[in-house]
């Protein structure tokens, strides 16, 4: 069923029908709806979508850092065969940093300004690994070298403000990798950086994770980064995955109208294009998601059925899409969604 069968057996991360709600005074808002995907060992899964689609929320939910009034309302999260969505605060704390590393968008604010970077890395190592302080410091130094900090033996005792933005994000990457996690969740790791630095950081992240066999969930709204980096890509819209599949297929032959709209908005170098295509309208707010397919009001190809029910995620060629247009092509359409 669903997209699980196309990834290798025994995925590092397996998210099954994950739903997340915000309980507010005006009622319950569903921010994530039946999210399912797997990430295999060493695989990079790109997650794209516009702001508010639920990309970051998915990452935050996996690592168990959803703030109130948000709460998981359904589904399961499995990390290497261990269920982690119901193991409680202390259980999660041992997973965070140790088995799932996280990289946030803004390296300027991710580091505690009052602590030396070396101490912050050593702190992470000491929290998760039975090593001496000297050993933790040696490892911190090795990590700083590995992420390409020049003169790391001097910089290890520097404070975050003494680094540039790009260098700080390298430190953040070193922190995320400090306890050798199985999975890195990178939430828009380059958005806050200069364009010239973005490519360096992405290349670095890719190289480090490849050599260590670390899987990556790369959350971004930059399709260029996805195209270069990801093995597979999940396109999110209004709290659901609307298309997921190998990156080449999704980019070249998107099946969901929203995904093709996104791809049409990528400027290609060399090609003479008068105008980039644009998806008219805006994503609905959480409290105003229309019945049926959430993309219907903006969809040029909408049919009658779209307003009636949420389409299931069905296999279309190499990818899976949540669209009624492809229903006929797939006989196995399960009752999901």
């Amino acid at each position, binding site marked *: 069923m669903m997209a699980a069968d196309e990834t290798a057996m025994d995925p590092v991360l397996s998210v099954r029908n994950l739903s997340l709600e915000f309980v507010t005074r005006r009622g319950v808002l569903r921010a994530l709806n039946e999210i399912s995907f797997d990430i295999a060992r060493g695989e990079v899964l790109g997650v794209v979508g516009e702001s508010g689609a639920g990309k970051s929320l998915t990452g935050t939910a996996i690592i168990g850092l959803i703030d109130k009034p948000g709460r998981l309302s359904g589904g399961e999260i499995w990390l290497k065969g261990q269920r982690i969505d119901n193991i409680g605060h202390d259980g999660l704390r041992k997973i965070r940093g140790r088995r799932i590393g996280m990289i946030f968008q803004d390296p300027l604010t991710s580091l505690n300004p*009052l602590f030396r970077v070396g101490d912050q890395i050593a702190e992470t190592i000491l929290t998760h690994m039975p090593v001496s302080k000297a050993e933790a410091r040696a490892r911190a130094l090795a990590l700083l070298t590995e992420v390409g900090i020049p003169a790391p033996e001097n910089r290890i005792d520097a404070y975050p403000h003494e680094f540039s933005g790009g260098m700080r994000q390298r430190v953040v990457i070193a922190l995320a990798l400090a306890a050798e996690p199985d999975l890195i969740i990178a939430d828009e790791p380059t958005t806050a950086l200069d364009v010239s630095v973005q490519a360096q950081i992405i290349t670095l992240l890719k190289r480090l994770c490849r050599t260590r066999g670390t899987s990556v969930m790369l959350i971004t709204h930059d399709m260029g980064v996805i195209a270069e980096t990801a093995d597979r890509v999940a396109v999110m819209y209004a709290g659901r995955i609307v298309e997921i599949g190998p990156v080449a297929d999704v980019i070249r032959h998107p099946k969901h109208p929203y995904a093709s709209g996104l791809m049409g908005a990528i400027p290609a170098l060399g090609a003479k294009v008068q105008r980039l295509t644009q998806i008219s309208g805006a994503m609905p707010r959480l409290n105003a998601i229309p019945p049926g397919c959430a993309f219907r009001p903006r969809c040029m190809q909408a049919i009658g059925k779209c307003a009636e029910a949420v389409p299931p995620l069905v296999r279309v060629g190499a990818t899976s899409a949540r669209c009624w247009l492809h229903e006929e092509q797939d006989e196995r359409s399960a009752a999901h969604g």
Partner: protein
Amino acid sequence: MFAFAIRSLAQGVLVLVTVAFIAFSMFRFVGDPVVNMLGQEATQQDRQELTERLGLNDPWPIQFARFLGDAAQGEFGVSYRQGRKVSDLIRERLPATLELAVLSAIFATGLGVLLGVYAAINRTGFVSNVIMTTSLIGVSLPTFLIGIGLIYIFAVELRWLPSFGRGEVVRLGWWSTGLLTESGRKSLILPVLTLGFFQLTLIMRLVRAEMLEVMRADFIRFARARGIADRSIELRHALRNTLIPVVTIAGLQLGSVIAFAIVTETVFQWPGLGALFVNAVQFADVPVMSAYLMFVAAVFVIVNLTVDLLYFILDPRLRSGRRVAKGH
């Protein structure tokens, strides 16, 4: 860092000179010192002689310079009313005020930070709500009322603690302390509570608010994502960031506790500088008043300097000085 310290010091000196000028002009506007010293029976001749001897015929900049020079050495002349040197009076009263103020400050900041952190961490707990509600009383009740209330409960009704004075004091050189005798310690309790209560509630509310703010910061989220233990996040990562703004306020509050212990000293008949000042005002004892003015200014300057230097210890971003601005 060194340049910064020099700059702060220079600013402090400027403040002191300005205040000194105000203290100096008090002599010229509040009564005539010659009349005050000689009384009404003196002849015109005596007055002229004394005026000349005191240098009061010199141009005022010279007089001011002389005043500054004396003030720098701690000399403020002779009290009109008590006929004793002001510097001696101050030295006699200073230990009582300092002991009271420092103990209040320790009580207020220590307990204030503790309760503030507790209330921030357990934001919705019952105890936190009790603390926050009580703190509202502390912020809104005037100090003298708290003092009188404490006297009524602990001195009048329960008879546990004395209602006035310092009790027995022990002299150590020119310093006198109440900390070494039981009656001295007992006498300190109520005034310390009274003087510190407002500061306590203020610091507590400030720490709580700052801490809640810091706990929302990205680096706290990132620390959580790294799996750092909650206690370590709260007491290491968050608290240190909380303390930077708190140090400023607490420092200024310490200054005002030392300087304006007047109300508490009056309520408890505490033989400190505040009481000395109140008496001086009643008798227009200008030398004492101007000396007290200089003392208050000096306290604030010293406290501010200390706070500035504390920043350097707490915040590494300041230590590297100018480089930061150019940073990224």
